[in-house]
């Protein structure tokens, strides 16, 4: 398979790429930190990956997205899987007084995903083949006090994917929305970890399974489907009083 990964330095992307590398696939990796991308390249090679192309890009430079997609198309004849994993967890308190930051976070977690998913979807549509998997978050299921900026951006991406999925159905292109819960990664270093926390490897295994089984919306780990069902079911008059 030719696997394209955007945000390849993220913990979940890395863990997924490692699992795929063990199966000998080829990769196009895009991420912001070029040194980290090279490290990942060496790591995947050791694990058995085939050809690997690196395309460093700062996701905030949205005007470069079309060039990136052109380069991806050049780097591989046919794309079999696109995995979009980039994201950042903003400081909610700072967001409350800093709209510039909010806007940046909305770009990273929301509109940049739309931009890249949309452009790459068109490539897959042209091929009439491929899977587009995007890592969003359970935070997108409902706006909660401690991180509703992040949640709003993630739900933007999720809602977009729901429509895109239908649009691409006639073209043999499958769209997957992966919603991880709490994941123990560098992005969440500042949190104390409890029993609900999962490792990036656990999420990665869910992703591989979702891709091979053509699932639609995947909670990772699976118990988050139940948790978020409960969270969504809480009436507003009560929910507004919750601080979690």
């Amino acid at each position, binding site marked *: 398979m030719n696997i394209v990964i955007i945000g390849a*330095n993220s*913990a979940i992307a890395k863990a997924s790429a490692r699992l795929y590398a063990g199966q000998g696939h080829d990769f196009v990796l895009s991420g912001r*930190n070029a*040194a*980290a991308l090279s*490290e*990942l390249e*060496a*790591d995947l090679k*050791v*694990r058995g990956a085939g050809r690997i192309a690196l395309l460093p890009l700062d996701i905030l430079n949205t005007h470069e997205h079309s060039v990136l997609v052109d380069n991806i198309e050049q780097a591989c004849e046919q794309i079999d899987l696109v995995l979009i994993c980039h994201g950042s967890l903003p400081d909610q308190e700072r967001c409350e007084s800093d709209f510039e930051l909010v806007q940046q976070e909305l770009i990273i977690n929301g509109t940049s995903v739309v931009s890249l998913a949309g452009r790459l979807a068109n490539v897959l549509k042209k091929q009439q083949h491929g899977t587009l998997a995007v890592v969003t978050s359970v935070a997108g299921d409902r706006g909660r006090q401690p991180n509703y900026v992040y949640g709003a951006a993630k739900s933007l991406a999720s809602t977009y994917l729901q429509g895109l999925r239908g649009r691409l159905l006639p073209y043999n292109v499958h769209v997957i929305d992966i919603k991880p819960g709490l994941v123990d*990664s*560098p992005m969440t*270093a500042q949190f*104390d970890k409890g*029993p609900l926390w999962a490792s990036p490897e656990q999420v990665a295994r869910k992703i591989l399974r979702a891709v091979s089984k053509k699932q639609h919306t995947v909670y990772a780990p699976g118990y988050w489907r139940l948790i978020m069902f409960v969270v969504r079911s809480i009436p507003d008059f009560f929910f507004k009083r919750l601080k979690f």
Partner: protein
Amino acid sequence: MQLSGWGRYPSSESRLIEPATQGVVSEQLAALRAQSSCLISRGAGRSYGDAALAPVVLTSKHLDNFIALESNQDGSATLRCAAGATLDEILRLIVPRGFFLPVLPGTAHVSVGGAIAADIHGKNHHLDGCFSEHVESLTLLLADGSIRECNRDKDRPLFEATCGGMGLTGIVLDATLRLTRIAGPLIDNRTYIANSLQECLELFAEHAAAPYSVAWIDCLSSGQHLGRSVLFLGEHSQVVPDKKRDRSRRTISVPFTTPGWLLNKHTMNVFNTLYFKRQKMRSEANLMHYQQYFFPLDAIANWNRLYGKNGFIQYQLVLPEMSAAQGLTQILKKVSEAGKGSFLAVLKQLGAANNNPLSFPLAGYTLTLDFKMEKSLLPLLNELDAILTDHGGRLYLAKDARMSEATFKAGYPRWEEFMEIKAAVDPDNLFTSKLAERLGLSA
């Protein structure tokens, strides 16, 4: 956050830094140096006591990438990987390719950095030595921010002090490990029953040529059964299994901390007796998957929670060949009298010591005992320390949570040499742990 080692005793409030790249490690180190704030690096958190505890702890858990796997023409191979890679990940990579790690401890969930810092040993120490014997080279981030590659030819004293140096010389960034060739993942296991300590020691001597050897010892038995044990010998099997047998095991997990009183003299006595009987009835030779042979406890994730919220202390000692029989008898008697043993006490013959100033193994026998942490335990351990010191033995720093500075210095006479090397690369004692403070390694 509240951090502790695998034994969950002691714990301390620490700021945990989780760098995602080597660049961030260097940046964080520079920032800490500017604040003159001490730190210690931490791998998988599998040392038992306070070796990876400090006000600031820098973990390598996200620095676990492989760098290069190179096969040589003679069939051997080397793997270069970042310090946070665990032996489990490495084995999953190399075993299907026909390679193995030359030294494995009792759990696969240790990091390469931790394996170097503790200079771990395995069931083949009597033949193949410590982990560091198979480390070709390592890259060390020093207190001044410089990065130094060291090995047996280059900066040898620093290399030797780092192997076994408990993270006090610098931060291991990556290492190049020599791998050995194997036919497949299976181990030929043979079991021998020993009805007393003397019998067990004789069996070890008789089977000194066996590649892997370790004995489980019932430390609650007394009288003529004192030291009754089961000796497990192993060697790599030439049998290449079909797919079904090759499958690695499933693990179960202890989901929460169980009440400490569940593990007491009586429950452990029942367990030990049943375990001994079961081993007696089992066939003497069988094939086992390497995970099952080397890492039996890894089948139960978070088994440390079984000891209750106060945690436990793993007491691992080594006694020189000459005084081993006498010293072990005295120690086992004391433990048996106190009725404080544990399941899975382990006895193992060790080969000659290497040249690393703080490496634990020396030619003799090592005994490992788990004790549930309780107030009355510490005086007993002090008594054991006294017996140990009298017989020229010492304790394993990776397990230690409580020994005195005097006991340490008596057991590790080359500590001053270690401190000289440390002083040359870390004059301000930037790298300090609770263990180092307790043992006088941070002056």
